[in-house]
């Protein structure tokens, strides 16, 4: 028995979990319908696939949500996991699930997949026969992903960095890398049986003034860590920045860089897709305006030619949306995609050059770290602030990079912290903003920039 196998056996033995029948699971995946695989759907689609978010505590309600989505002709079904499960707190999840079932009040903000188990959940995925994407935010997602894959969920979002720095305060980063290495390997293994399992990184991070170079570097690193383990279908992603031009620049640069770095580590047979997140920051408190914002995001997704869009709802600033509201959002976005035609290609050479330089210098610094493996290099780079995510709640993150919006709402770096971007690049970034000397003025500007989409 390999080490990996041993680890696996330990993981799936858990008081909240029914026994795993791995032979049966392999057989299931081998003969699963191609329609369950988003990697298959990507190959055969020439528009932007539409995926909402959505997870309810009970099976029944999740099923009803999928029924609503089906009516709206959704492309990719979401399965959002509740935050207890995300922190591996299956006990609390169970307690709240029971309460939800008993009282018809949702006591969880997502679907507690581990508690429901794969035997139950698979009934749902195969019934609807559309790709399901797992959205969680879990640093140690090993059990969760085993359960997901066994359930017929063949897209797994997340990664050691993107699901840790925005989603956790204390979880040890080195452990996260190892746990995700496990996830990558399981995905890679199952990918040999049928269409490839798709892995997707979570580009939005904290969704709060994250500079493009940080997003892209993290996307590239999670992609490389995944490809290293044998994953063959990977999605890089980012969220609406607040500036249409900056979105286009990011899309163009990330696509080029993904190719470049995949080749650099010798991988040429993987498919890389681009996912765009509708505005992930603070939403307006007005539902009509939220609809407008959502539609503008959809427009940008088409402008930047994203392969998939992950959408929000008009309820975003209020709470978990009702299923009808969520399905309506799907229908609206699909309508916009159907009628929005003749989209120009947007290129901004100066911005793309600057961003490319920033990305290369950070990537170079990561590769130059003295550690022996890529994940250790990345770990060290985060620890010493070479990678620094604004507004991360995590203790390891430096929080020394400061960004602000310029007059076109582009996110600009005004303090680079330990991030190794060149003086030239920093000068370029700073040249775009008129900086006040007054510190409280800067703080007020940042608060304003966080609320940039408010009424």
């Amino acid at each position: 028995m390999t080490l990996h196998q041993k680890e696996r056996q330990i993981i799936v033995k858990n008081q909240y979990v029914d026994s795993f029948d791995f032979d049966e699971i392999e057989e299931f995946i081998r003969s699963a319908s191609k329609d369950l695989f988003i990697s298959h759907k990507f190959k055969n689609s020439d528009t932007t696939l539409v995926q909402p978010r959505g997870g309810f505590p009970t099976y029944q309600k999740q099923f009803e949500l999928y029924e609503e989505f089906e009516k709206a002709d959704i492309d990719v079904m979401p399965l959002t996991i509740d935050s207890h499960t995300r922190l591996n707190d299956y006990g609390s999840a169970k307690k709240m699930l029971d309460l939800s079932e008993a009282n018809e009040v949702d006591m969880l903000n997502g679907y507690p997949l581990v508690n429901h188990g794969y035997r139950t959940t698979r009934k749902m995925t195969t019934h609807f026969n559309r790709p399901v994407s797992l959205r969680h935010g879990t640093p140690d997602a090993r059990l969760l992903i085993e359960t997901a894959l066994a359930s017929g969920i063949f897209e797994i979002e997340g990664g050691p960095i993107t699901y840790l720095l925005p989603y956790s305060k204390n979880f040890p980063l080195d452990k996260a890398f190892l746990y995700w290495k496990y996830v990558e390997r399981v995905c890679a293994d199952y990918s040999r049986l049928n269409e490839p399992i798709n892995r997707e990184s979570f580009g939005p991070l904290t969704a709060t003034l994250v500079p493009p170079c940080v997003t892209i570097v993290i996307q590239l690193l999670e992609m490389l860590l995944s490809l290293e383990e044998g994953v063959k279908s990977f999605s890089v992603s980012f969220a609406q920045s607040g500036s249409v031009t900056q979105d286009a620049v990011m899309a163009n640069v990330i696509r080029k860089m993904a190719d470049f770095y995949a080749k650099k580590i010798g991988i040429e047979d993987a498919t890389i897709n681009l996912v765009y997140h509708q505005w992930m920051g603070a939403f307006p408190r007005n539902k009509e305006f939220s609809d407008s914002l959502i539609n503008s995001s959809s427009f940008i997704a088409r402008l930047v030619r994203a392969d998939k869009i992950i959408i929000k709802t008009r309820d975003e600033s209020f709470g978990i949306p009702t299923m009808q509201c969520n399905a309506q959002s799907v229908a609206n976005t699909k309508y916009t995609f159907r009628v929005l035609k003749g989209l120009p290609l947007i290129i901004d050479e100066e911005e793309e050059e600057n961003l490319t330089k920033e990305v290369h210098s950070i990537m170079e610094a990561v590769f130059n770290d003295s550690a022996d493996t890529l994940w250790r290099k990345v770990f060290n780079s985060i620890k010493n602030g070479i990678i620094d995510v604004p507004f991360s709640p995590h203790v390891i993150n430096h929080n020394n990079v400061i960004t602000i919006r310029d007059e076109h709402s582009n996110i600009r770096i005004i303090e680079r912290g330990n991030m190794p971007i060149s003086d030239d690049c920093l000068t370029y970034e700073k040249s775009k903003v008129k900086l006040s000397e007054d510190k409280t003025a800067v703080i007020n500007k940042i608060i304003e920039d966080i609320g940039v989409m408010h009424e």
Partner: protein
Amino acid sequence: MYKVVTGVVGNDIHVVANRLIDISLQARGFEVFNLGVNTYLEEFIDAVVETDADVLLISSLNGEAEGWCRELQFLMAEYELKDVTFVIGGNLSVGESKDEDLVKKYQSYGFDLVFHQIELNDGLDQLEEFLGKKS
């Protein structure tokens, strides 16, 4: 100078409001002990006892507050925290809720001030008013 312990309760990691609250409380002249996100009720109470705080100001954004805050009443009794002002704010339910129902519920758990989806500065104004009347 009032002492205030603040942070985000439970498994909630929404940190942005927490950073702004820290800045705003300081700007208003409070002495702030910020426990950050992902803080459990017991940790809050420990910090209140330890710092001898006047106010405990809890944020919750991800909708889980109810599950975590029901026990406030028992802890209050246990530690005899009579003079402390208990405040909670943010997004206090999963999905949309009626404000009045929520306020009543959280008051029954022992909170003096409950701010569901209320602008930070409006809430802090009310807090200062409340503290003024109390003293």
